[in-house]
């Protein structure tokens, strides 16, 4: 029955949606990236790869590219450490752990715009709760979001705290799928808790590592919402990511062609990271089995 070819028309509506709203824009984005279009007037001329060459010498793009990697890699590292630690803690039977899990997970469901707004209040120079603590400890008020380095660190921490719940539940599911007999057998053989962690837990969590790392890295590399709310890319262009820079070039600088080129580069970065990591993790999985 399933050899019937006519079942295939069922995916035609979905493919039509993708063709119009995803594939066509992606192709058109590449074409626009080869022009000097300003975004609204009908005139545009073909300038070849000029936009890409221009990017190489553009310090603003250089900063945004560096920041994008900091946002991506910084958040990924923080979330793996915190997520795994929290999952290990939750894996022990403790009273109140389902409440702790629910609260730690809660920010995942809230818009990053809302989390950014609420954290902005906390980091506010004059009214912020954090500066109240600094002053109470005898220090001077700090302009947390006015310094590029501090602001980038804060954005990484806010993004990591918001989505640490995802890593936590992925690792918890991974931990709970490890058969307890492995631990029992190793205990009989006299293994220490650390030896068990390194010899059993870490290798058997491999699929969870793969899932969580890929997910967090993509999320961090395309970071947009939190930056827009907390610093709007400033001071200057110092906290800009590739995503925020695209909207700024397009809507504020009327450089639609250039913005498209930055978009194509962002897409390529994410594609290379995703495919690269998936290949790496799949190969390791084969070696383990």
């Amino acid at each position: 029955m399933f050899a019937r070819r006519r079942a295939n028309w069922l995916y035609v509506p979905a493919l039509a949606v993708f063709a119009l709203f995803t594939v066509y824009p992606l192709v058109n984005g590449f074409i626009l990236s080869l022009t000097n279009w300003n975004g609204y007037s009908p005139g545009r001329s073909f300038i070849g790869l000029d936009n890409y060459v221009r990017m190489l010498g553009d310090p603003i793009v250089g900063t945004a590219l560096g920041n994008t990697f900091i946002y991506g890699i910084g958040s990924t590292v923080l979330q793996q450490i915190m997520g795994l630690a929290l999952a290990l803690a939750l894996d022990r039977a403790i009273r109140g752990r389902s409440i702790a899990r629910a609260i730690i997970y809660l920010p995942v469901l809230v818009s990053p715009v809302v989390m950014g707004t609420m954290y902005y209040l906390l980091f506010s120079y004059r009214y912020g709760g954090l500066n109240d603590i600094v002053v109470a400890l005898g220090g001077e008020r700090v302009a947390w979001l006015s310094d590029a380095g501090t602001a980038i660190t804060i954005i990484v921490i806010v993004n990591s705290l918001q989505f640490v719940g995802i890593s936590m539940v992925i690792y918890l599911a991974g931990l709970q799928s490890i058969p307890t007999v492995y631990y029992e057998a190793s205990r009989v053989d006299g293994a220490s808790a650390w030896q068990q962690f390194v010899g059993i837990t870490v290798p058997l969590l491999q699929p969870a590592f793969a899932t969580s790392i890929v997910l967090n890295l993509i999320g961090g590399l395309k970071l947009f919402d939190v930056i827009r709310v907390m610093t709007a890319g400033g001071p200057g262009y110092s906290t800009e990511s590739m995503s925020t820079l695209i909207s700024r070039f397009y809507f504020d600088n009327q450089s639609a062609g250039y913005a498209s080129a930055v978009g194509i580069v962002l897409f390529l970065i994410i594609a290379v990271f995703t495919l690269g990591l998936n290949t790496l993790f799949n190969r390791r999985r084969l070696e383990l089995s």
Partner: protein
Amino acid sequence: MSRLWRVAAGAGLALAALVQLVPFYVALTTSLKPRTDLSSQWVLPTSGIYLENFRIAVEDGGILRAIGSSAIITVASTALICVLGALAAYPLARRDTLGNRIVFAGIIGLIMIPPLSILVPVYTLMVQLGGINTYWGATALMVATQLPLSVFLYASFMRGLPISIEEAAVMDGAGLLSTLFRVVFPMLKPVTATVIILTSVSVWNEYALSVFILRSPDVRTTAPTIATFFASQGSNLGAAAAAALLSVVPMLVAYLVLQRYFIKGMVAGSEK
């Protein structure tokens, strides 16, 4: 030793939970105080509860209207994503041909495209189609960005269903569509719950495209509304905090009622 570990684990979890509640607490105390009250954000209001900020958030910020717009777009796109996703997944799960494998891999590949990377062409397309400031325009983009994950989840789930039930239905003379609607779709409830949760959370919170597509306050959804209101209320943080808190309420209620499904659904959705 193991007792010590247990205490440390409990303390660590309690600390993490407290840290996660800090932004909500700070927003709450800020929203309940007048602008003239310069007491610390850590202190609850002492001179009674002040609700003026919430009035400003509703009347000047239009936050309730924004919640309505978010609800319309979320329901419409979630419904479309479930139906289109399940339909598309069926031949991809059941007819294992080279062509279908390529189509499937192509759809999964679409998950990698960051929304901002195609901002210029998507915005241009929406201008040409007249989709700026319309519910359908935003819904179309939400469907396009969330549908790949839905197809993937439905296809994975369908591959795990026994094919013999469908074969029996065909033996009894059922056509393709009646097999689908009477036999296959009723078995998809668990995966549909996952798709609904993942999709509605993403769409409800979406900002990166909505902020550009929905520019008029009449149609703007919650996330862009909060961001715009916040930017315009630089001196009145209390009203911004009130708006942020109000926008979270619907999602919070859903989470409290359906917490078990939320976490389970998110885990299933991430294992792709």
